[in-house]
């Protein structure tokens, strides 16, 4: 547990704090509050009940306000163990009394309080702040406060520095617990006298810090109107929200029931698994029957050479494996493994069961040697089932359909391009030995964290853009880009890359490849097929496409659409429950896709309108609302102008038609 904390913020609210100075857009008070709010919200965000805060407003004498703060802390914390702190933020222009300074300092020290004094435009040669034309009264106050703070081991600084440090995201330090304590072994110690065992512990080396997660709330009944009115603004600080409960019901398929489904009782249910589409029920006594029996341990399987390991095989976050605490012999033994692996440029591969009955994983163990720290880095490797074999053509040669290897091809770089790429890559080399991990911060985590705190303080303000720190690596460094400008230009010209205009994307562009490998003209064969003037219901999609591709007049396209729509409507009418819905969606989707390609969006849009009327009017075999919902979900709404330039439907109109309202036509 973290230590209990008691912090009192003393904020100078004197009249002079209301002024804007040195060209700043905010008053001194607003400036100071930026810091104070940040600290307070940071504390609230931790959700810790043991981190307590008090605030003192000060109008004149800063020194006596410190005395008040000391009293507050002492009253609250009594003599208990607390981390005590007083933070004073002022511009140092008020009256200050230096009487009894020694006593105050002594009291602060005796009570174990840390005093932090931050001043607007206080001089700080180290940070580089020096206020020109500082009036002598303020200078005196600054000296006084500096003596006060530093005299009791506290901190004295300028506000500008404190505020600039707010920009650097704060990292939450998490103490790791061991995820495995046991033996790193080689061989089976229960059977062989030659088995080797080293007691080790395993901790996270990396672990992704997740952004805070939001919970779901419902808008409080009756509050809806209010919120709608304030659209754009957020529902203010939680008053309109109510928490949510979930309740679960259970259904099974039953063809005899209306709707094909029937509710079942929770008590009639047992735990089970699916094996294919067969339900396998597991009785309670057999609960762990499918669990592989395993015992904890980290057992070395063998060793692999570093240069034969592909870095992309890393499957997970990484861990460190260190010797058992306070076991020198284990340290020494593990050290010999670490050094031997290092010298031989080898990794170990091991089977890890972190706890009894947990599934085994295969891990890589890599040596890590720093001057004062040695450990094994451990991470999970893929199993056979984790590797998906998707095949891709080679990138350095082209193999033709006939099996010939070609080395000059539009998909292969010319020598010029290769050289230009090589030069560009070399000119964009980053400085430094190490990757910039230490100053890269999780953009989403810190942005949400900041936004929540900001919203808590300023509920009416819109959300902010992410800070520069968070997007530092979103773009290459300007200077680097400037240096590489020439080589980039050469690369661009050697590459001769052409952007595909949005319109010509899509399938029709590939017409010429819609031929079998032999190049046979199947379209010609199709034309000879006498039967194919009418689209048959059982082979509708291919025949619809083929009819369109043969169409030499708009009438034929109209006819094809008409035939297709009548097939679709028959399918809807005859659908038992939702049995034909997927076919309907496929038919509609195909029609939509093709009519976009043939630039006839109106045909589709008109039909969709008619279909919607029929569905909602229950003309196609009763209640088909679920189908309309499926059509919407499948994004088969009107073809808008963004999809097809010749469409007359705007994006907004398309959205409206997709809605469920009946009266829109």
């Amino acid at each position: 547990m973290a230590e209990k904390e008691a912090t009192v913020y003393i904020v100078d609210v004197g009249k002079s704090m209301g002024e804007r100075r040195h060209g700043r857009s905010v008053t001194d008070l607003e400036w100071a509050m930026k810091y104070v709010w940040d600290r307070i919200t940071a504390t609230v965000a931790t959700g810790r009940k043991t981190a307590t805060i008090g605030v003192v407003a000060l109008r004149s004498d800063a020194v006596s306000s410190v005395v008040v703060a000391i009293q507050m802390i002492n009253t609250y914390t009594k003599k208990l163990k607390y981390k005590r702190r007083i933070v004073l933020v002022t511009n140092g222009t008020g009256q200050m009394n230096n009487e009894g300074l020694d006593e105050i300092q002594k009291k602060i020290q005796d009570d174990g309080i840390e005093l932090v004094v931050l001043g607007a435009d206080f001089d700080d040669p180290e940070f580089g702040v020096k206020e020109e034309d500082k009036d002598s009264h303020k200078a005196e106050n600054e000296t006084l406060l500096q003596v006060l703070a530093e005299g009791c081991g506290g901190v004295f600084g300028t506000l500008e520095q404190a505020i600039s440090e707010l920009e650097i995201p704060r990292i939450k330090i998490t103490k790791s617990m061991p995820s495995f304590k046991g033996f790193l072994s080689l061989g089976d110690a229960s059977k062989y006298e030659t088995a080797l065992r080293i007691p080790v512990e395993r901790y996270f080396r990396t672990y992704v810090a997740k952004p805070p997660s939001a919970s779901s709330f419902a808008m409080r009944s009756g509050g809806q109107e209010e919120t709608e009115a304030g659209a754009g603004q957020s529902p203010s600080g939680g008053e309109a929200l109510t928490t949510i409960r979930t309740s679960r019901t259970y259904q099974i398929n039953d063809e005899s029931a209306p709707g094909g489904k029937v509710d079942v009782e929770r008590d009639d249910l047992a735990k089970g698994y699916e094996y294919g589409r067969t339900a396998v029920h597991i009785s309670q006594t057999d609960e762990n029957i499918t669990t592989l029996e395993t015992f904890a341990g980290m057992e070395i399987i063998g060793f692999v050479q570093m240069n034969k390991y592909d870095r992309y095989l890393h499957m997970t976050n990484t861990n460190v494996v260190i010797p058992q605490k306070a076991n020198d012999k284990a340290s020494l033994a593990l050290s010999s493994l670490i050094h031997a692996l290092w010298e031989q440029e080898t990794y170990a591969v091991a089977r890890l069961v972190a706890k009894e009955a947990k599934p085994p994983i295969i891990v890589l163990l890599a040596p890590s040697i720093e001057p004062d720290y040695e450990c094994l880095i451990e991470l999970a490797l893929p199993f056979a089932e984790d590797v998906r074999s998707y095949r891709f053509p080679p990138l350095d040669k082209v193999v033709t359909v006939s099996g010939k290897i070609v080395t000059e091809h539009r998909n292969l770089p010319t020598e010029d391009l290769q050289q230009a790429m090589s030069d560009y890559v070399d000119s964009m080399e980053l400085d430094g030995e190490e990757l910039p991990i230490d100053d890269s911060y999780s953009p989403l985590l810190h942005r949400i964290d900041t936004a929540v705190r900001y919203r808590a303080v300023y509920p009416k303000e819109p959300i902010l853009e992410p800070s520069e720190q968070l997007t530092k690596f979103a773009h290459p460094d300007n200077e680097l880009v400037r240096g590489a400008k020439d080589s980039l230009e050469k690369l661009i010209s050697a590459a001769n890359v052409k952007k595909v205009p949005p319109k010509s994307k899509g399938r029709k562009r590939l017409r010429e490849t819609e031929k079998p490998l032999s190049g046979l003209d199947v379209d010609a064969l199709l034309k000879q097929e006498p039967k194919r003037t009418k689209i048959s219901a059982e082979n509708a999609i291919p025949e619809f496409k083929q009819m369109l591709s043969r169409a030499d007049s708009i009438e034929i396209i109209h006819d094809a659409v008409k035939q297709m729509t009548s097939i679709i409507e028959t399918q809807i009418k005859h659908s038992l429950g939702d049995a034909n819905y997927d076919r309907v969606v496929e038919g509609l989707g195909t029609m939509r896709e093709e009519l976009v390609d043939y630039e006839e969006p109106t045909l589709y849009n008109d039909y969709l309108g008619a279909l919607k009327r029929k569905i909602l009017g229950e003309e196609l075999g009763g209640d088909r609302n679920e189908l309309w919902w499926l059509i919407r979900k499948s994004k088969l709404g009107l073809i808008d102008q963004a999809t097809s330039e010749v469409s007359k439907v705007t994006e907004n109109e398309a959205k409206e038609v997709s809605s469920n309202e009946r009266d829109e036509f």
Partner: protein
Amino acid sequence: MADDSYARDEENFEEEEVDETSFRAVKDAVLFAIDVSSSMLEPRLSGDTKKPGQESPTSAALKCAYHLMQQRIISNPRDMIGVLLYGTESSQFYDEDGDRGDVSYPHCHLFTDLDIPSAQEVKELRALAEDEEEARKILKPSKERVSMANVLFCANQIFTSKAPNFLSRRLFIVTDDDNPHGENKSLRSAATVRARDLYDLGVNIELFPISRPDHEFDTSKFYDDIIYKTSPSDGEAPAYLQPDTNTATAKGDGISLLNSLLSSINSRSVPRRSLFSNVSLEIGPNFKISVNGYLLLKRQEPARSCYVWLGGETPQIVKGITTLMADDTAQTVEKTELRKAYKFGGEQVAFTPEELQALRHFGDPVIRIIGFKPLSTLPIWANVKHPSFIYPSEEDYVGSTRVFSALQQKLLKDKKMALVWFIPRKNAAPVVAAMVAGEEKIDENGVQKVPPGMWIIPLPFADDVRQNPESTLAVSPDPLTDAMREIIGQLQLPKGAYEPQKYPNPALQWHYRILQALALDEDHPGEPEDKTKPKYRQIDKRAGDYVLAWSDQLDAAFDKMFGGTAATTSTLVKRGPKDSADSAGGPPAKRVKTEGGTGGVDEEVKRCYEKGTVSKLTVAVLKDFLTAQGRSAAGRKPDLVDRVEQFFENK
């Protein structure tokens, strides 16, 4: 259990392979069409004298189908598979009402209907593949030649009715007949038309040709008219022959035929699905190409348990429906009424859905190169998850492939990597990642094992790096390190490399093995096969003596560095006795220990067990003992005693 699925789905959202542009369901249906002719049924003897046996091409194909079926139950539980035998004497299909027994497709026998397989179907297919009796009944070649047009249209109808709106539908044809219709023009042209129908329906035909002992399979005779240059569902997928021309035809004798067919089918067991498509790879300001992203490495987990309803004749999977209710009024809450809010010091801080989306927005999806670095600067520990694989696409920028190729080759040659800003999809959290070039790798059957391309490895942010825990350092002296080097030298894995293919996930396999046994009402399968277990006997044989030598070095180094007493003083007091026991122990048993004398504990516990006085041991000793055996050390003393006794009983 089933109840937390909602939360988990949300978590996995970024990992899902979705097609945002298509109305089609991201599912795959594979229909095997297996030729049953007398030459396909002719057993071929194994040429390998060590592994005698025989295998006919048809039975090899059925075994592959069975294997794939089992595998897909694990890896793709929502996908469909079916088996159509053609050229059989019998005909079997379903009529409009779904009943089987129609003869509209003569000599086509739909053995396993296209569906998510049931346990019964798995059993039947296995019987057909392995049980000769069973097989003889069905696998009778017809005397009349089957029309390929009919076979293809039969497949068409199966896909149309059973797998409507699937993103991926594939017909796997296994045959040794490269010219089924000879010179018969009308049959040929009918087949090409039916093949075109399949193409227009979005069905991809994949051919698994088998050469006859006296005749090489020649695709130009017939199949080049049937198979298309591009896959209808994945326009950029390579045409079927290209990547493995040299092994297109499975040939040879029994076992090798089976193996090459297996390898070939395995490589196509899953359709290519992209994780993200046409994302810009921004090589420099104003210089972009387009790439697609794929998940080639992803931990395969067993499917979650679910609820089963036992009230009927057969157990049924239950669908759970969650209803959200407002806490104060108990009224049902629609999704549109939901608001997200963050807890903040006992209050809620709320945002509109638009604001929440804006907070996640850091720009359009992109892979933007911000510079290059030597590959050696990528630390082994700097990892948080599996990588994504990228391959160029010509869809948005013509010329992407050649530029990508130039970059990939340069990075390979100079052992460099790119540092990138990576937003894989709309409103995904940006990461800084290392982009590393990967070489193509081919397996012993000539099938591509690892594709050429680039890998995007997300790096940890400063927030994700944990501080190293405290640890005492005792640097190994050279002689001790040398002794360990000897051991390592003896135990290299084959070719000094890790081959994922050799290590099936034992827990996953066991889970499904048991489920299969339960579903098919079979006997318990006995011992699980676990290839991840080290080869203990070999380790002892090859490295045993070196381990003993290392142990002597360790004792010597330890005495020299810490002396006899140092260990005790540097250890927690309660561990004292064990440590001293170890340091003093010139062990009669040579078992090598560094655990600080658990050996002594071992003996002690064993003695107590034999005398029946385990319960007299202290909790600390029991815990140490159990931990050393990899057993759980949780619980109260009686539990620990039980567990210790059980340990010896089972020995």
